[in-house]
């Protein structure tokens, strides 16, 4: 894989430059399930906070691909896609998706071991369900010993009885199998890790998993012995390999890609240095420079605006308009490239120090998103001048800067339609993943036309190039608002994905609105209206959305003949910023299939743009009607390119994974929902990486 090895080489190079702390503390390693553990068994350890990993393991005919994230120091979760080759003589392969949660109850102390409680495949059909308690103790800096007790699969060999009663059969619909948890036969497991050096680790374990499914039922893996042995090699902080002997009969291989969202591979952003702040002459030395008479010169405005636009164009910042008096300037900017709002503001302030006459003391910078002012950052020019070379200038400047509601654009402001391109288009390769390993690759042609401030016409066409998507036929008894997705991909090639007219506005202070009309997404078309209340310095935001949509034909064209389905949906939403990058969201309302319910989502966002979260939706659709999985849930992540590349870019990779797609709990997928785009320039978006204001 040429491209991936190049990317990895880049990542590896990045780390070579970072003075990475030595792995003295021996954080936990990953097992064949992509979870922290031994070989096939879990351990009491956790990964370092915020570690994100992608693991692939081959165990004879079984393949496990797992995404794991250490959501906080103690809590971690996994999303796993597992396939069994030749599972059934007739049906062939079998696949299953599962979700795990682990919580480290006890951190390792001088005497106490690390203790973790875990739920594996906690909501699926139960092919992989188990629960465990595992304790791990480190001896010296080489040896770790783990002992644990497992239930479910992990209690299937060498059981010691059922301390919490018998295990009921799995509900085939796979709503959280809470009545199964920690029930039935419990069995002990144990293992040993020996770290030979920083690169090599040896592992041995005694497994309590009888592999009933694979051995007794299907004859895929022969389990001759409960003992597993293996060796692991840490190639770089980003890569780990493992080779194992499993159950006396099988060879297993594992490969882990381990990423740290907190650390950009190239350290800081490598963009060009900013221009120095331009100092004004001392007022006493040159009082005339401070004369505000220039305001009345008729050509002052266009010249200033042009000079500013020229300077800011280097940073990908467009000047929407400029308004000034003798002592105050307000500039509205559109930031097209810099990934940190604070840096875009800093660059604008520096440019203003060069362009504006000395009498202008107050810089008001209004970042504009989709034609609407997101906030107003007010910087005193003398603070900028005084603090440029001062120690801890970021903190000191922040204390003197105010972030307030954007307010309306001043009536006398000077816009210029020629200053930024109104028409933008791009042709880009795209990956659409429906599973961690399944999806299609294609080309997307998209275009935007800014008709007037706040009015955007946009569209996109997608053409598939290659796919490994499996054909699936929906068996849903609900309106098939989502489960025909594979049909849309198959029949709609090429497809008009979107063609919409959107209008964004600020109806009042702290209120933002959006109205989108047209082909909103590839399966539905209609009207979507949204109103958001979000004061600039508030951790809480409230929103409401109402949509009317009709289901589109699967051929990717403009028609509506195939489904004859239309519906009014809508939600009220509450957003809360818990601090330290944890965001929560609650949506209550009516979903696409006509079901009523609520969605809870939690995301962890990092200042550099990484975002990892999970969501779950419960509606009045019964588990039977929803189908496998019982209700809608999944994980989502955003990986910003600047994290890997170290350069200014606002683009990123967005991925959503659901263990089971259903028609219940589905929402319209509308572009440019308000909260995320506005939040970047509010205090909770600006402050985490405020230091970049001086970069």
């Amino acid at each position: 894989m040429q491209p991936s090895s190049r990317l990895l080489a880049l990542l590896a190079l990045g780390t070579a430059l970072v003075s990475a702390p030595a792995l003295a503390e021996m954080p936990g390693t990953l097992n064949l399930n992509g979870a922290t553990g031994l070989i096939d068994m879990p351990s009491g350890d956790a990964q370092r906070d915020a570690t994100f990993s992608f693991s692939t393991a081959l165990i004879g005919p079984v393949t496990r691909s797992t995404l794991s994230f250490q959501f906080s120091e103690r809590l971690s979760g996994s999303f796993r896609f597992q396939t069994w080759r030749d599972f059934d003589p007739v049906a062939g392969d079998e696949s299953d998706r599962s979700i795990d949660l682990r919580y480290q109850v006890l951190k390792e102390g001088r005497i106490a071991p690390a203790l973790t409680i875990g739920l594996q495949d906690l909501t699926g059909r139960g092919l992989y369900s188990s629960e465990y308690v595992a304790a791990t103790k480190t001896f010296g800096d080489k040896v770790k010993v783990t002992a644990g007790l497992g239930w479910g699969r992990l209690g299937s060999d060498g059981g010691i009885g059922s301390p919490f009663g018998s295990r009921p059969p799995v509900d085939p619909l796979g709503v959280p199998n809470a009545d199964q948890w920690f029930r039935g036969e419990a069995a002990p497991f144990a293992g040993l890790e020996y770290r030979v050096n920083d690169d090599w680790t040896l592992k041995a374990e005694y497994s309590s998993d009888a592999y009933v499914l694979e051995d007794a039922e299907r004859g895929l893996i022969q389990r001759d012995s409960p003992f597993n042995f293996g060796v692991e090699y840490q190639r770089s902080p980003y890569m780990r390999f493992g080779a194992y002997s499993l159950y006396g009969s099988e060879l297993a291989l594992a490969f882990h890609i381990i990423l740290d969202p907190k650390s950009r591979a190239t350290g800081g952003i490598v963009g060009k240095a900013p221009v120095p702040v331009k100092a004004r002459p001392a007022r006493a030395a040159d009082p005339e420079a401070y004369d505000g008479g220039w305001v009345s010169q008729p050509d002052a405005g266009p010249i200033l605006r042009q000079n500013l636009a020229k300077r800011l164009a280097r940073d990908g910042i467009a000047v929407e308009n400029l308004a000034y008096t003798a002592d105050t300037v307000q500039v509205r900017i559109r930031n097209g490239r810099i990934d940190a709002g604070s840096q875009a503001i800093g660059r604008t302030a520096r440019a203003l120090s060069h362009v504006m006459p000395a009498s202008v003391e107050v810089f008001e910078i209004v970042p504009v998103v989709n034609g609407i002012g997101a906030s107003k950052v007010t910087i005193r020019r003398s603070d900028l001048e005084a603090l440029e070379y001062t120690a801890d200038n970021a903190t000191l400047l922040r204390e003197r800067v105010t972030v307030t509601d954007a307010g309306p654009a001043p009536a006398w402001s000077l816009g210029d339609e020629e200053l930024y391109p109104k028409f933008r288009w791009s042709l880009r390769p795209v990956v659409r993943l429906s599973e961690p390993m399944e999806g299609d690759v294609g080309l997307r042609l998209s275009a935007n036309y800014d008709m007037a401030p706040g009015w955007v016409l946009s569209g996109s066409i997608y053409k598939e190039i290659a796919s490994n998507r499996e054909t699936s036929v929906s068996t849903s008894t609900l309106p098939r608002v989502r489960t025909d997705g594979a049909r849309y991909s198959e029949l709609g090639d090429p497809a008009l994905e979107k063609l919409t007219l959107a209008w964004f506005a600020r109806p009042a202070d702290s209120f933002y609105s959006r109205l989108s009309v047209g082909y909103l997404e590839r399966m539905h078309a209609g009207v979507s209206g949204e109103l958001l209340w979000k004061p600039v310095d508030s951790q809480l935001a409230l929103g409401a959305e109402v949509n009317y949509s009709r289901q589109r034909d699967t051929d990717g064209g403009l028609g509506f003949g195939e489904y004859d389905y239309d519906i009014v949906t809508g939600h009220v939403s509450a957003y809360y910023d818990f601090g330290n990058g944890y965001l929560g969201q609650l949506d209550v309302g009516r979903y696409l299939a006509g079901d009523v319910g609520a969605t809870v989502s939690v995301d962890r966002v990092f200042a550099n743009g990484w975002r990892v979260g999970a969501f779950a939706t419960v509606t009045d659709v019964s588990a039977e009607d929803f189908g496998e999985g019982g209700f809608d849930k999944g994980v989502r992540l955003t990986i910003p390119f600047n994290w890997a590349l170290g350069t200014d870019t606002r683009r990123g990779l967005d991925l959503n994974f659901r263990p089971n797609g259903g028609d219940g709990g589905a929402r319209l997928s509308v572009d440019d929902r308000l909260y995320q785009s506005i939040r970047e320039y509010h205090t909770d978006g600006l402050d985490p990486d405020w230091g970049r204001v001086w970069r």
Partner: protein
Amino acid sequence: MKPVKLALAGLAAVALLAGCGNDTTPNPMAAAVGAVAKTGMAKLKGQSAEAAPAAQPASPEALRAELAQAGQPILLVSSKALGQTGFLTVSDAKGGVLTWATPDGATFSQRDGVLIQTRGLGFDLMSAQAPSVGQLRQVGTSYQRVYFFLGPDDQGTRRTYDCVTSSLGAERIEVLGRAHATTRLTETCTRSSGGGKVTNEFWIEGAMIRQSRQWVSGGLGHIDFARVID
């Protein structure tokens, strides 16, 4: 293994392929190559190529004469770790701070020769509470030095050190073919909390820092500076 490969290839493809259009975002592949090429001090090379053609095996004296023709102060900057050397000119001077710039966008700001900021290098020193030359010359008296960085997650971090200088006596040094009589000082800084030690070397001529080896950041280590032309 086809699906796995597709997923990986896909991730890589998204990152590496650029597509086209007039959208303002840059070509990520070009950016990736650029990031590798430019990370850190590679930028200085552009400068050295311009100010002092590397291909030309000139004697130090000839090079100095050539540089002097520009009629402006020149700072020689080199990073052993990155194997780069360049001659820099002043892009900004105010309040006792000189900012030296490479033509392709890296800067070093020094207050009387003591490094207080860098930009455009990736692992930048964002700001610093640093000693004055006068402070450095007071051998044996301790003071505090604070470095401010942006962590890899872009959050601000600081490192506080207790520092003291010691004199290594008079030392005659040569900077690009010209001899200077200097006093050599070593600044030793120990981390107030969390351990760690940083040393800086200064060769002081009269009241000015003629040459120095100063620590920039964990990612860049030390960088050597020499004032070639005043």
